[in-house]
């Protein structure tokens, strides 16, 4: 996080705000709600309180304007610059302006007013932009389905105003660090020749032609998917990706969700209803056999016959010696299986049933 240079802050933490005008894009009540919720995010984690006033000058004046609106920072029409806000101070200090040339929404369509307002009010309180892509104070617009302060945002506002009076200090989600030695994954899969790693709300991908590891919200590609996926695999010859969470799974071709999803894993694959969720899954491109790993056991499903093979479940230890129990994730590349257990990654040869190497989970990120 970054505090605004000069560390401007409100001396009195009981602040007032006023919505000077309303966008025609949304019902007034929705605008009121979005702004109120945005203030609530910040008051929940700090000593700050916000009271709405309906006339006169408030500390934070909120308005919808377009083009040059005489604050020396003209807007630029649709897209690009969505909104801005001024650091704490008298007069225009703290005020937030939203570009009326944008379409303001209360859902995942661009641009979600609640999401943008939560960011702008961070500026009104003394925060600048954060380099943490998972933070609300990240400069670029990303709507990941839910609007929540990350730990980075909370640490920032508390650096200015101190902790919340709440006896239980609120915390927020942390963004994975690709070169963190302790990095583990929820799921890993190939996707059209690439390898994608999943953790909490994020995906990570590394490729040979760009040195930096790409990390972004899963919702950038698949807005319908929940956070905290548990397993994922690719059926290469059908160009299909399947994501698993709990007893549901979703199927996509590229970014397009296939019709009728999510579906139930018990009905679709014949996995016993005693299984509440899948730990990891991989489909062997050479045999069309898909392996579902659950605790110490695994099932094998035939993608061609579209039925579970007989004689399963079996113990993982019997057919994948050395892999042990509770697999976090697994994917196949060049005929080998890569198993992820915590921070460890095993390269396994399914033909010889031998472990060929042991690496750090994030070894693909060339740290």
């Amino acid at each position: 996080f970054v505090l605004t240079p000069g560390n401007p802050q409100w001396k009195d933490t009981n602040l007032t705000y006023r919505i000077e005008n309303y966008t025609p894009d949304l019902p007034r009540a929705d605008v009121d709600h979005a702004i109120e919720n945005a203030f609530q995010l910040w008051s929940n984690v700090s000593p700050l309180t916000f009271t709405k006033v309906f006339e006169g000058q408030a500390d934070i004046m909120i308005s919808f304007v377009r083009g040059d609106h005489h604050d020396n920072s003209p807007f630029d029409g649709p897209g690009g610059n969505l909104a801005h806000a001024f650091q704490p101070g008298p007069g225009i200090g703290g005020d937030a302006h939203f570009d009326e040339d944008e379409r303001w929404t209360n859902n995942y369509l661009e641009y979600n007013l609640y999401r943008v307002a939560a960011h702008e009010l961070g500026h009104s309180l003394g925060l600048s932009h954060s380099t943490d892509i998972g933070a609300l104070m990240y400069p670029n617009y990303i709507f990941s389905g839910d609007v929540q302060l990350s730990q980075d945002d909370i640490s920032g506002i508390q650096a200015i105003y101190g902790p919340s009076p709440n006896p239980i200090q609120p915390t927020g989600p942390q963004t994975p660090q690709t070169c963190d030695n302790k990095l583990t994954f929820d799921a890993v899969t190939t996707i059209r020749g690439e390898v994608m790693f999943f953790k909490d709300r994020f995906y990570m991908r590394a490729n040979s032609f760009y040195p930096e590891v790409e990390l972004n919200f899963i919702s950038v590609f698949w807005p319908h998917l929940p956070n905290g996926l548990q397993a994922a695999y690719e059926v290469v010859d059908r160009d299909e990706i399947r994501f698993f969470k709990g007893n549901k799974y979703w199927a996509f071709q590229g970014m397009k969700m296939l019709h009728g999803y999510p579906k139930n894993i018990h009905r679709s694959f014949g996995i016993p209803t005693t299984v509440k969720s899948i730990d990891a899954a991989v489909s062997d491109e050479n045999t069309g056999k898909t392996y579902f790993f659950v605790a110490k056991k695994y099932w094998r499903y035939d993608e061609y016959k579209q039925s579970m093979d007989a004689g399963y479940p079996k113990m993982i230890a019997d057919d994948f010696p050395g892999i042990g129990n509770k697999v976090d994730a697994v994917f196949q590349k060049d005929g080998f299986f890569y198993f992820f257990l915590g921070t460890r990654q095993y390269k396994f040869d399914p033909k010889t049933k031998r472990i060929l190497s042991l690496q750090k989970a994030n070894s693909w990120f060339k740290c």
Partner: protein
Amino acid sequence: SHSFPAATSETQEQDEEMVQKYLENYYNLKSDGKQIERRRNSGPVVEKLKQMQEFFGLEVTGKPDAETLNKMKEPRCGVPDVAQ
């Protein structure tokens, strides 16, 4: 490269103008009104590009590569990323 239309000089110029405007708006590049082509590899522009690439975790090349241009085209907050 045959799969992508080679960037026309016009596209290139548009991109260069976008880069300049972006760096003026968000990275405190002083706009001296000079034509863009004389500035493309000037010290300040390269420096500000590196600052932006660093901020967004991109490869720090000082050049407006595809990743950098894509990032600049994303909708965003109008408040600068660096102190004015």
